[in-house]
């Protein structure tokens, strides 16, 4: 196990090194950020001075070398725009995004899995058909539309929920205060619709497949109660693909909350990264992508470990 973990860590380090190089190179090629940092009435002399102060008048190799030296000291450089250490800027925004993604994922699992099971047991029943119809709309309706309709109904027309912002924050999250929870409801719902529908459909397919297996028939024939057959024998065996997808989807949620964050003016990393790309703020873009790739790597690792618990045949 230890060897496995070390091996994985080594691979992750290589992945992140490659990512840093690619991103650094793309941002280097993208253009001169000083043209955006200085107002139009600055002179060419100001442009040259600022380029020098930011160290972007050097060759690509020199700049990347300086970057690596700083990384060795745990420093990803200062943001060109915010003037603060890039890691600080990203970490300050990360809790807002993680909070949204984690809650949306929990919500999707709590509702998606049971609904999927219900829809799989009697696929022809009217409620199964209703569930499947709703899940189809969850997959096909664009997030932007869902979000705006929620805002229109619950904020503008009814005035029940705040349309935007994060509300009161306590211990890095808004989930502990009533004001914070009110701000969370709509963004979390918006973000979960697609995930919920996806998890629901996967659960259903997986369950229906497993329910056809011989061992399920055997268990039923032996007189094992229906509840035990469904929730123990069948569910456990349909979990592997579900866990894989949930892992991938969680990474997606963290990395692509941008639309939801935009609609609800949620101060997460999605908005930050778009702004930073538009401003050619290289240190932020590099720091963000390194952190996100680290999260992806970590999720993959956790998913692999979870497999061994669900299915003893799997060895890491």
């Amino acid at each position, binding site marked *: 196990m230890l060897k496995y973990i070390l091996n994985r860590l080594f691979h992750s380090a290589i992945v992140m090194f490659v990512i840093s190089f690619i991103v650094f190179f793309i941002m280097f090629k993208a*253009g001169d950020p000083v043209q955006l*940092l*200085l107002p139009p009435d600055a002179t060419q002399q100001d442009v040259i001075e600022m380029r020098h102060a930011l160290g972007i008048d050097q060759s690509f190799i020199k700049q990347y070398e300086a970057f690596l030296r700083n990384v060795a000291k745990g420093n990803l450089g200062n943001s060109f725009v*915010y003037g603060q250490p890039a890691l600080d800027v990203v970490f300050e925004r990360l809790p807002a995004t993680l909070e949204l993604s984690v809650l949306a994922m929990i919500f999707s699992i709590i509702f998606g899995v049971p609904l999927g099971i219900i829809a799989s047991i009697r696929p022809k029943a009217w409620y199964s058909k209703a569930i499947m119809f709703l899940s189809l709309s969850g997959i096909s309706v664009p997030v932007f539309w869902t979000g705006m309709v929620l805002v229109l109904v619950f904020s503008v027309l009814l005035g029940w929920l705040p349309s*935007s912002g994060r509300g009161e924050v306590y211990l890095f999250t808004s989930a502990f205060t009533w004001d914070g929870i009110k701000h969370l409801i709509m963004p979390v719902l918006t973000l979960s619709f697609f995930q919920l529908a996806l998890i629901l459909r996967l659960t259903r397919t997986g369950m229906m497949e497993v329910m056809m297996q011989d061992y399920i028939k055997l268990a039923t024939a032996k007189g094992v109660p229906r509840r035990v057959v469904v929730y123990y024998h069948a569910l456990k065996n349909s979990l592997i693909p579900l866990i894989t997808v949930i892992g991938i989807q969680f990474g997606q949620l963290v990395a692509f909350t941008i639309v939801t964050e935009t609609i*609800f003016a949620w101060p*997460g990393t999605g908005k930050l990264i778009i702004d930073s790309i538009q401003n050619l703020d290289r240190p932020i873009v590099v720091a963000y992508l390194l952190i996100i790739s680290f999260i992806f790597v970590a999720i993959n690792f956790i998913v692999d470990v979870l497999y061994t618990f669900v299915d003893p045949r799997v060895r890491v």
Partner: protein
Amino acid sequence: MKRLTVAVAALALVGTMGVAKTLKVGLASGAYTMDPQAFNETATNSILSNIFDTLVRFDENIKVHPDLAESWTNPEPKVWIIKLRKGVKFHNGNAFNADDVVFTFNRIKNWKKSGFKGKVSMIDKVEKIDDYTVKFITKKAFPVFLRKLTYVNMLDKETVEGKSDEWIGLHPIGTGPYKFVLWRKGDQIKFKANPDYWAGKPKFDDLIFRVLSNNATRTAAILSGEVDIINRVPVVDVNRIKSNDKLNTFVKPGLRLIYLQMDQFREKSPYVKTSDGKNPFLDVRVRRALYYGINEDAIIKFIMKGFAAPAAQFHPDVVVGYDPTIKRVKYDPAKAKKLLAQAGYPNGFSVVLDAPNNRYINDAQIAQAVASSLAKIGIKVKVNATPKSSFFPRTAKQDTSFFLIGWASSDGDGSSMLDGVVHSKDDVKGYGRYNNGKYSNADVDRLIEESDANMNPASRVKEMREAQQIAIVKDQSIIPLHYQVDIYASSKKIKFVPRTDSRIWAFDIK
């Protein structure tokens, strides 16, 4: 019923007496830093103007008024003596005096990453005469001196000296009407009233700026009453907000001109295709044909939904140097075609029009409209609309033949655009950095340089107008399109004052 009325009356009384008054402002973009000398950008400047004072300040119509400077004299062309306001305190209790002024100017001059260098570059020396008198010596006679000072926010020397740039970027301490409370990046910035403000206690106890960059979100926030003011009201939502009887809308002409510029320096331009292989824009008749051939009224009506003012010159009428005699020509495609034929292009030519797609209001759509207008006079225009991150670095390298761009005369003085866009590119003298079509006319250069150092307001404006007559009417160095307007919405519970400089200055809001 009676009991209810009493209860309501009692509640109303409590409402006016006890509860802290809060002003919530929804902004299309937020601050990037709390250091008032780092990033010179409208949203950041707007927010920080509530914390920091300047020596002189613009009123809502960009007229200069005393702020921390009580009075000033200009005994010699290059010398300014400024008397400072006495008894002013920073938010941490330190007194404001001449040392702070000297320190502030030197910090901008010496800090390589400051975006405000252009505001102080003409100042050679700042000297303290006594605690409340400061002497400025400029490199040349400098008529725009006071207007430039409106961008220099006063820092406290005792607080800031020796601190890192990162620290200053998070700890704003000024002398203004509001004190810093917290900044949750991308979400909100909270200020509270400074009861000791020299001009009196502000009307609102708390001032909250919220970042609502999505247009629909901003509209939803004002409709649902979550904020009291929003800026940059999306034009599609104006009627919806107008029909709400709790809200007011405001339209304020802004300072930004949207214009087209073209390659006026290369014999062969990289993105133009003509029958003779030459650069057609070198011929003034072609440039004038573009001016006649663009249906600006249609752009304003259909793309800007009426929220823009047609432009005929470099700056709007509130700006010093505006020339009332320069009028926009009437849209005349027949005349445009004739001019093209005279220039030797009866069948037109084809060209790529570069434009940003996330910088100005409807920038990419305006470029498309220009293209379809010019198609009617035979010029095939291919629009290349890209994000500002690629557009500006490209135009700075003149990697373009024809481009749509904007300029805001943020000093309220015509010299900024004349220096930056009209004067020939001259990196040594610091002129023409934005003149990326490289228009060049020696007479215009001379007039601009003379007017830049002319302390007589009347003859100075005469020189500026003379330069503009040549650069616009005679040479058609740019094609002006329109001036942007700022649209705001506010709750009827407050009295909002829109400003020409696009800032939200809460002290004037009642």
